[in-house]
């Protein structure tokens, strides 16, 4: 098990931000980079990251399980995380979430049988003014969602 040279270069860039004896500080970024490459974090991936940073595997595993944007099981190719917190709820997030569930035929925490989509409920993204919101694969935010814009988005994600 290893990561691509490109991923390792990105991790090295993160490590350089911290004091030489504090490589563990890069664990959150390193796990994120590993997840982008692999799609999710298998135990062996987490162990590889821990080795690379010279930290105990259990400490990397603690980080991977504590922060909720890491995936510890395989997900669909496209993970859609919808914020349903109060400000978004007041602005129509429940309608958006119901539409997604109906359209994909799955509930929160589930993956479509063809492995294309995983749906998740998220907590506040800190962008409530543009709600309802969703994140695509953690990093791309879509704002001002309506059932119509959801349909367009889903069509684009093959």
């Amino acid at each position, binding site marked *: 098990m290893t990561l691509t040279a490109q991923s390792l270069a990105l991790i090295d860039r993160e490590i350089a*931000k*911290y*004091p030489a004896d*504090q490589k*563990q*500080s*890069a*664990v*959150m*970024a390193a*796990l*994120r980079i590993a997840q982008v490459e692999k799609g999710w974090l298998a135990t062996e991936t987490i162990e590889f990251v821990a080795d690379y*940073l010279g*930290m105990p595997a259990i*400490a990397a595993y*603690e*980080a991977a399980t*504590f*922060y*909720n*944007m*890491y995936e510890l099981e395989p997900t669909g190719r496209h993970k859609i995380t919808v914020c*349903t*917190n*109060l*400000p978004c*709820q*007041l*602005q129509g997030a429940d309608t958006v979430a119901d539409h997604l569930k109906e359209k994909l035929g799955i509930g929160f925490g589930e993956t479509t049988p063809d492995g294309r989509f995983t749906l998740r409920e*998220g*907590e*506040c*993204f*800190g*962008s*409530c*003014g*543009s*709600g309802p919101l969703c*994140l695509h694969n*953690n*990093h*791309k*935010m879509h704002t001002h969602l309506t059932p119509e814009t959801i349909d367009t988005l889903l069509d684009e994600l093959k």
Partner: protein
Amino acid sequence: MSATYTGPKVCLWTLDHPDPASLETYVANGGYEALKKILAEKTPAEQIIEQVKLSALRGRGGAGFPTGLKWSFMPRNFEGDKYVVCNSDEGEPGTFKDRDIIEFNPHQLIEGMVIAGYTLGAKVGYNYIHGEIFELYESWEKALEEARAAGYLGTNILGSGWDFDLHAHQGYGAYICGEETALLESIEGKKGQPRFKPPFPASYGLYGKPTTINNTETLASIPWIMRHGGQAFLDLGKPNNGGTKLFSISGHVNKPGNYEIPLGTPFADLLEMAGGVRNGHKLKAVIPGGSSAPVLPAEIMMELTMDFDAIAKAGSMLGSGAVIVMDETTCMVKALERLSYFYYEESCGQCTPCREGTGWMYRVVHRIEHGQGRPEDLDLLLSVGKNIAGRTICALGDAAVGPVQSFIKHFRQEFEYHIEHKKCLVGS
């Protein structure tokens, strides 16, 4: 008559320019001048702290602690590394102002952090950016590159012989990391569980070194204060509440968004700027300072000014300036159910009263919302709340209790109706 504010803005003035985030826009409008002056004149740190104290700048992340006083806690004669940390882990439901500073005025935050580093004797600073706004983590790193290339950051800044560098650190989905010691743990690559205090970060912070942690909007205000003087900043607001402030308005308004206005502006004016309540509905309730702030009924809110002291006097808090507006169609039980779920989900699990209590409160509110409430449930909720508040390492426990207590206090009959009739009073 429509309410507007046309006076000086501290943080989001760049939005009045075509290319708000660019270094060119920032520099063409006085950006980095404060830093240049400080480095050229070798302004003593004490003088900078005096100006910040005079400005009455209070922490914009939620606690409202005087920034100048916080800065004065850093040990002056400590030999060794010290750190400046910016808290952009903006995840308090209703709050979305720091993201706009990073997106639309990144260089003012950089300049503020560099001045903070100079004042506090740090060589390195970190900006902890909420994981869910990853695109801004990347854009801020680009702004750092621009600042380095232009000589405002890195080694020998502006030829002064002084070095200071900044880095972005990403969160990845944990509200608790907005708590400053949890944030430090997280930068150290650990679970974000708050530390017991004391010792405070000024003596034992990042990697055990003296550290000052300030909110994004706080740090972004520093260049303005140093350019125009502490008195000018104070004069923008009201005594003990200096400056303009970003208010994030969300919920049932026609124009949700950020509004930068002087502290002390009437809430009624702010509501009008946000286009008023949607669909001509009647205002029911407002959470004036982020989800952790106690809710206030419309009639109290409409009489209030938006500043730390006025809102505290009314029994809530200005917090981060996140104003969640709810109109007459809002079911207060359902609203509280969602907030209670949030705190249950985000409790770090370290302290038993919070770990167990937040789940207990959520389950009870959930059963009331779903027609299975029991007559004794409201007393039970308040009793659980009493056994959480003040009994935990950090403020998340208290934050979870605030909504429960205030929703029941101001809207008790709605909860009782739910319990008795197994359905909603407002039918939303």
